[in-house]
């Protein structure tokens, strides 16, 4: 049994309540018309809706009570993010939560007590990690020089245009460090918004050159590298949770169409050529959901152990593969309708391509799983 390893999967009362509330909230507040209304907007989400999510306490779910959070741990976010994925509700929640985790895991007491209450109170934050398109690149290109001035650009920073706080991975005196940058410190024109395949998401290239980082906002030490590794794994998990929700919604969309569309005098859902792949989407989504809640069980505020690392990577692999398959078949099964912008199927396949590229793709994680499992 050692290869199959840890198969713990539990679900707390708090998680169950969060799931119930989040499901209902997202269904009511984020119908497809609301999602589509944001596709071309600058911010990509409705501020009033974000305020409501903050008032429900979601921005602080995974942060300690001492910092204004609810102290439920990052696993408690999984049911919320899955529900948001199901409703295709894009807000800065994932970015903010991960920025909070990075500060929590790497910062000293003074830094976490000063910065985290803002995040718990709903001030949007994000993390800027990518120097290039390679999630497997362990080097850090952005330089923090000895005068505390930054030099370089981060790519594809999620929710950059609304974030008030950036947690940036930097190279400082030759070692990995973190710099916390406020949006008002950025020079004019620093943001270069990306045109994204997923129009429910927002990201930008951010040029941090010339920003002088406050001394108290520099995080150094051996915890930084570990925190960066762990937050990438948590990022993989949260994206997996979101993708699993989107895959479930995509499945519902397909099933609805198969039950109503007629061709050759029959409901197309009666054809096995469509039935059987739809069942494959169902069983794959089932597996994805099992993996994300297993991973949610395995992670906590401590340094992630090997079982947790395996769980997060497997969750990312299964969820992304599932959404890629569901989204792809979703287009095909809608026939000519599926080729239109009006058909919701396009939203899911675009989301699939976005999710696949966050925190390492399927191949990235399977390669690391091979090392963890096979030596």
């Amino acid at each position, binding site marked *: 049994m050692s*290869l199959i390893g840890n198969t713990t999967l539990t679900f707390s009362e708090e998680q169950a309540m969060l799931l119930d509330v989040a499901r209902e909230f997202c269904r009511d507040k984020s119908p497809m018309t609301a999602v589509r209304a944001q596709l071309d907007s600058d911010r990509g989400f409705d501020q009033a809706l974000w305020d409501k999510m903050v008032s429900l306490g979601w921005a602080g779910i995974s942060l300690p009570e001492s910092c204004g959070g609810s102290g439920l741990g990052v696993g408690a976010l999984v049911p919320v993010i899955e529900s948001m994925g199901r409703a295709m509700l894009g807000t800065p929640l994932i970015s903010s939560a991960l920025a909070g985790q990075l500060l929590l895991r790497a910062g000293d007491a003074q830094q976490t007590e000063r910065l985290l209450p803002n995040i718990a109170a709903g001030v949007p934050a994000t993390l800027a990690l990518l120097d290039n398109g390679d999630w497997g690149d362990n080097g850090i290109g952005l330089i923090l020089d000895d005068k505390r001035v930054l030099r370089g650009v981060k790519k594809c920073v999620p929710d950059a245009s609304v974030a008030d706080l950036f947690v940036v991975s930097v190279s400082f005196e030759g070692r990995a460090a973190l710099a916390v940058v406020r949006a008002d410190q950025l020079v004019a024109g620093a943001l270069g918004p990306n045109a994204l395949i997923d129009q429910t998401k927002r990201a930008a290239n951010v040029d941090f050159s010339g920003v002088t980082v406050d001394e108290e906002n520099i995080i150094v030490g051996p915890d930084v590298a570990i925190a960066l590794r762990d937050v990438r794994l948590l990022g993989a998990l949260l994206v997996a949770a979101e993708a699993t929700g989107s895959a*479930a919604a995509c499945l519902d969309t397909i099933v609805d169409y*198969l039950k109503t569309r007629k061709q050759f005098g029959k409901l197309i859902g009666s054809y096995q050529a469509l039935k059987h792949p*739809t069942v494959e989407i169902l069983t794959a989504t089932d597996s994805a959901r*099992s993996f994300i809640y297993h991973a949610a069980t395995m992670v906590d505020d401590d340094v992630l152990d090997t079982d947790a690392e395996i769980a997060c990577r497997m969750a990312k692999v*299964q969820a992304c593969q599932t959404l890629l398959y569901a989204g792809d078949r979703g287009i095909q099964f809608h026939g000519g309708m599926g080729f239109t912008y009006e058909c919701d199927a396009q939203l899911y396949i675009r989301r699939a391509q976005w999710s696949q590229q966050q925190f390492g793709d399927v191949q990235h994680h399977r*390669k690391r799983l091979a090392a963890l499992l*096979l030596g």
Partner: protein
Amino acid sequence: MSASEQELNEFRVEVAAWMKDNSPADPGFLLPQTFMEVGDERQLDFLRNWQHKIWSAGYLGMAWPKEYGGCGVEPIYQSIADKEMRRLAVPICFNVIGLGWAGPLINDIGSEEQKAKYLKGILNAEDVWCQGFSEPDHGSDLGNAQTRAVRDGDEYVLNGQKIWTTMGNFAKYMILLARTNPDSPRKYDGLSFFLSPMHVSGIDTRPIRKLTGEFGFTETFFTDARIPADSIMGEEGQGWKIAMKTLQYERGAEAGAAGGQSMVRMTVEDMISQLDGVRRDGAPVLEDPVVRDQVVEAIMEEKALFLGDRRARIGHLTTDYPGSLPLSHKLRGTEMTRRMRQLAINLQGAEGALYVGDDDARQGGFWQRAYLNSFSATIGGGTSQVQANIIAEHVLGLPK
């Protein structure tokens, strides 16, 4: 009084020690990997002796009543014994139709007379049982079975044909699904369930040679065969309901089954172990990046099944399509097994082309044989394609 953790642990140690001391040596001939591969008398005698020995030691039918050959203890003991048998990879308990289908059913809803007549012989392996459900023209469509049973005085007269009868040529009894009323409006309501004797005039069996080259199943022909009227289980017309009831015992001792392993353990881990010494491009096969990727996929598939079983117990996490996890279990499990066994052979290098009988075949051709046999599970009990239809219609609500 339920057993304490310590008592159970002591039992675990005891049963493991017994298995290690008593597990028979390799007999020098091919042993069945599952109960569906008992092809000759030599194999039958070997497995019969082994099951008898386990029963005599008190590790089979543990939760069944003492007066019928059981031990009358909590099912958890049998579950532990089963786990140890699996872990230690001892030979199988072959009388599976008796242990896991007929026996629990009789124990559950049978008369005292039936219990006294049948249960002990199932446990001690004296009475081999077989199953007569599938018919040549009604493989996956079990509810449409056409074999006739007509009441005539104190007897039923059987006419028709069954197929895929496991150990039909060795069996003393059969659980039989036959049509007593051909005119019932619902096809299911015309079926009845029998505990039929096999050694009567008019019942003939013909062994089927499987794709592996081995035997294990028969065709079974009924020609004016007369069986006692009290062979019926329940009432006429309840056959389908009773047949469905037998499925619930598949969940093991806790659900009523006598226990014992019906097949040799073959996990992804076993699949990887068999690659010991296999080389590819001059290096160990597991260093090859493409192979590693495929093996990770296989591990994930197996792990997903375990995790699905865990999640299925959490109500909040199964609200989407209730019934999805249990109804898809057979499909996912058997297809995963088939793919994994094929991978096992594909990774063997040139030896992958060898078969049972070749001295160089890896583990005597164990995985080649296992792969070919895996189709018994993706076809038997409703093909994967029929399973997919059932899931599409009953879970997703898609039209027929």
